[in-house]
């Protein structure tokens, strides 16, 4: 996508290549933070969108991981062209096209609420908070399809512990980035935006719950929630909020987007549960993409019951769907 007609070539079209390399260093944390941060800002101004869209940066992460599933990893092509990201269109193939120009640098995540040390984290800081791990998780969408993804990141508890939640903190509320200018299809989404999600504190602090910065060895593509998202593998996919900008520790159960949209169909917990059907389809089976047959048995807690079932001891999961 670097090839341009000669008449279109300007200085600003030539430089980004170097800046783009600089940006890699920036993301790797190899350069001088200050100067390169400027370069990073420069990239946002100079790089033509098509270039930035393809600037997936390699991330080095440890593997294998004790949480890894041994199932076959879903092809990258599938995971990057079949997305629910309503801010960029409600058709599955729309986010891959419409999120190409989405500017994800610079980026900060504000961590606030019932915490002793509220603060804002830059993307650069988030990438260095803890050693990056690759974790191969099953991902089960509420729409009864599933994929297997090698995410990159670390347990959410890492960032939570840094801000020191107070005893008042019982839940964590998450918020996605929202910008009408960059997301012109927002008004067709049919959901309230910005997208918000939430977890009980013990769910958020569970080691499986992941703050995710990459997948398939690279930074996240825009349509998959760049630059940073949540991954909660035992819950339906919509709980794993994308393009995270705010994390707030709160006293009461926070509102969540799909629950606001249709409380009858989407509960706060939304744990993967083959015994509780969606009102409009069975949740007992799923189609493992890119397959044709919806004949994969859905597992309780998406197969993570050994790790998380104890979180819900004594709870009626039919009522708390």
């Amino acid at each position, binding site marked *: 996508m670097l090839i341009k007609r000669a008449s279109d070539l300007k200085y600003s079209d030539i430089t980004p290549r170097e800046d783009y390399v600089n940006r890699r260093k920036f993301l790797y944390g190899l350069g001088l933070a200050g100067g390169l941060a400027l370069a990073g800002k420069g990239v946002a101004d100079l790089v033509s969108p098509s270039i930035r869209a393809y600037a997936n940066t390699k991330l080095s992460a440890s593997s294998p991981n004790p949480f890894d599933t041994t199932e076959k990893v879903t092809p990258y092509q599938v995971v990057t062209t079949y997305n629910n990201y309503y801010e960029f269109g409600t058709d599955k*193939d729309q986010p891959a096209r419409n999120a190409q120009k989405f500017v994800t640098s610079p980026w900060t995540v504000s961590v606030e609420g019932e915490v002793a040390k509220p603060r804002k984290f830059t993307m650069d800081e988030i990438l260095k908070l803890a050693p990056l791990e690759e974790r191969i998780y099953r991902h089960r969408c509420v729409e009864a399809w599933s994929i297997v993804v090698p995410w990159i990141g670390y347990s959410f508890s890492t960032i939570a512990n840094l801000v020191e939640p107070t005893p008042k903190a019982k839940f964590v509320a998450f918020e996605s980035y929202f910008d009408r200018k960059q997301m012109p299809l927002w008004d067709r989404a049919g959901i309230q935006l910005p997208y918000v999600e939430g977890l009980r504190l013990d769910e958020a602090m569970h080691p499986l719950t992941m703050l995710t910065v990459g997948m398939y060895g690279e930074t996240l593509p825009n349509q998959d929630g760049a630059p940073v998202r949540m991954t909660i593998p035992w819950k339906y996919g919509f709980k794993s909020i994308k393009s995270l900008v705010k994390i707030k520790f709160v006293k009461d159960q926070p509102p969540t987007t799909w629950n606001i949209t249709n409380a009858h169909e989407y509960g706060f917990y939304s744990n993967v549960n083959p015994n509780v059907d969606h009102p409009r389809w069975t949740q007992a089976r799923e189609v493992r993409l890119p397959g044709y047959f919806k004949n994969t048995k859905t597992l309780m807690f998406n197969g993570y019951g050994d790790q998380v079932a104890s979180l819900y001891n004594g709870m009626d999961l039919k009522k708390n769907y």
Partner: protein
Amino acid sequence: MNSILTSKWTKVVVFLACLIPAGLLIRGAITGNLSSNPTQFLEHATGDWTLRFLAITLAISPLRKILGQPQLIRFRRMFGLFAFFYVFCHFCIYLGLDQVLDFHGVWADVMKRRYITVGFTGFVLMIPLAVTSTAGWIRRLGGKRWQMLHRLIYVSAAAGVIHFYWLVKSDVHLPLEYAGVISVLLAWRIYNWYTNPKRGTAIPKMERKSSAPAISD
């Protein structure tokens, strides 16, 4: 214009054109280009084409009148049968790939889930229309009764739109667009009956033996 409409070759061309969506889907299945969720893609595509062919079929009568082209009636049965062809594919994909031939599961869906109840009803109501689409059946039933029976297409079209509307998670724009088109086509009939109470929809005079292809003759 009239000679084009009455030409048997026009019918052949239209027939082949109606098969293009099916052809593209088969090609997509062979080349692996039906998105990352091919079953859902096939369900949506065949559902879309069912609604489109229902709309085209329902547009024939208004167009005959408005354009003054009564010969358009020659294509109505073909379009109606293509609507049935695509809804039949739609149902088979749901049955075979989505439900993996679990008939019990299908019945549970039909009874339990209103969008499937209404969609299934619309589909079932189209079966007698497809069966009685021949000249022989028009004779056997008599024009008046045949016409009454075939008004079931109004129910099926409405059911199809409601099925789609209830199916989507939040973005109802597309179902509402279909609802708009179908509503206009049905409203025209009400208007037509009101202003022209004697003349209902046309009962086709079937040519006795046509060399033009038809699906279920």
